């Protein structure tokens, strides 16, 4: 799947932008603050979730007007075409329409898998588990479109259970009723994540050597547990006492972590150099795209600038070889040397009336 057109109105720094795209990678260059990441963020919202900055709908509206915003995109590929429209009125949450019909946000996951790498993820391997879990869930969503719905169902049930815990409610039947639903959704989450890790691992093995292979492992948070619905239900029931004391649920997929190791060196990702950590992430994203047969859209924000020329060439060759629509950003056109003719080049600049985009 790839975008054939993208229109932004009153979205962050973009007052009115309309792009027509041909499916090749898109290399976007422009000075700092010109609106490159904003453009990628708009694309990221075509996937379930809050996008690559995890922003609230209101922050996305162009200031100072804050009239609300709109993103319209056409998707094509695999013999299908869809139109996605996102919009948010001031103070309201994001509304989704697919092919002219109102749709739930999770339905976006069925249209196009999307993966991204942004500068904030540079510290992914050394910071808290939350970021890694989010990375794992984005990979999982690309393979298992229902992963978003399972996550939502799990979190809803857990919010209810956490409220019971905080209110020190002791009615076991009420806990059992919620834990059954958490167990069902949680088992689906576990299965999806395991599938994603297995498929990415398999695709890495088949990959080249330009980016280092990583060994991935899902680490159960809050103590080890089985992952079928029955096991999870037992773990939740057994954890009730401890959870009551803590006022929240301490075991389950919402506490899991993703561990990665640089395979050739047998070194945990957190112990690798900054450059190696980044290379590991790129390698995982490329393996993920390979496992999907070139179907996903990739958003690679400021990735090129941090690679040496050889690695940069290897990345561009990999992207073009996969035939994925990758959106790449950088401050200078020179960073995209070697992509001429193989990618669409766009130049973003900051004008008096917001960001403007032209052929680069």
């Amino acid at each position, binding site marked *: 799947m790839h975008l054939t057109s993208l229109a932004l109105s009153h979205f962050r720094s973009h007052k009115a932008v309309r792009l027509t795209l041909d499916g090749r990678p898109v290399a976007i260059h422009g000075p700092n603050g010109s609106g490159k990441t904003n453009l990628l963020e708009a694309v990221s919202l075509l996937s379930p979730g809050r996008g690559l900055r995890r922003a609230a709908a209101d922050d996305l509206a162009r200031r100072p007007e804050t009239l609300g915003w709109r993103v319209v995109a056409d998707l094509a590929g695999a013999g299908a075409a869809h139109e996605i429209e996102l919009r948010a009125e001031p103070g309201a949450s994001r509304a989704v329409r697919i092919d002219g019909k109102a749709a739930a946000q999770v339905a976006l996951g069925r249209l196009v898998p999307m993966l991204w790498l942004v500068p904030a993820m540079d510290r992914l391997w050394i910071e808290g588990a939350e970021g890694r879990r989010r990375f794992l869930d984005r990979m999982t969503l690309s393979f298992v479109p229902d992963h978003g719905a399972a996550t939502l169902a799990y979190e809803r049930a857990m919010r*209810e259970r956490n409220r019971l815990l905080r209110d020190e409610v002791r009615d076991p*039947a*009420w806990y059992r*009723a919620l834990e059954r*639903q958490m167990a069902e959704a949680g088992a689906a989450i576990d299965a999806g994540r395991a599938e994603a890790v297995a498929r990415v691992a398999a695709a890495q093995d088949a990959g080249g050597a330009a980016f280092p292979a990583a060994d991935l492992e899902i680490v159960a948070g809050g103590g080890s547990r089985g992952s079928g619905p029955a096991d999870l239900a037992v773990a939740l029931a057994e954890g009730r006492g401890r959870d009551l004391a803590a006022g929240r649920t301490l075991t389950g997929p919402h506490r899991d972590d993703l561990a990665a190791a640089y395979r050739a060196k047998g070194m945990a990702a957190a112990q690798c150099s900054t450059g190696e950590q980044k290379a590991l992430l790129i390698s995982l994203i490329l393996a993920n795209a390979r496992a999907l047969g070139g179907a996903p859209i990739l958003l690679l924000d400021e990735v090129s600038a941090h690679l040496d020329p050889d690695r940069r060439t290897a990345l561009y060759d990999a992207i073009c070889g996969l035939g994925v629509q990758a959106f790449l950003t950088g401050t200078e056109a020179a960073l995209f040397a070697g992509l001429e003719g193989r990618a669409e080049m766009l130049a973003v600049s900051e004008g008096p009336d917001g960001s403007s985009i032209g052929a680069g």
Partner: protein
Amino acid sequence: MSADRLEELIALMARLPGLGPRSARRAVLHLIKKRGQLMAPLAQALAEVAASARDCVVCGNVGTQDRCEICADPRRATGEICVVEDVADLWAMERAGVFKGRYHVLGGTLSALDAVGPEDLRIPQLIARLGEEEVTEVILALGATLDGQTTGHYIADEIAAAGVAVSSLAQGVPVGGELDYLDDGTITAALKARKRL
């Protein structure tokens, strides 16, 4: 009559579901124009129902007696009780005309976040009815929402102890917590294909 009284009436009408300030104003104007044929009989009917309406002491349905018509009808003592969230759901089931037993209206669903607990939902009354009415099967007709399902599991758990069969309207039918919006055919199919829990 002062204009204030009129405005008061419009404000009251605007609180009805489906009416807003503008449509309430239109409705009141219409009533005043047709005050002989429509407004006076409506006012009388409203006053009478307001004086006699009550919740059925057994099932929570609304009626004009202590026991609603369904609970008072011996032919509806089939041993089956259909549990619904709201009176609107009961009416939807009745409209479909397939269910021959009695009902139990919970008056909501369990929700920790909204501070609705089992004691707020007439669940103890349901348990009490199991023995009193020789109930053989409880059919849960609750929404496929988190709260609807939680309530269903909770009731099934409580009833299992009493040795009464529990079933649930067929999964896969779009019971989004609003049985009221389903057409009769869908309700009939969901009841026929109900699943034992």
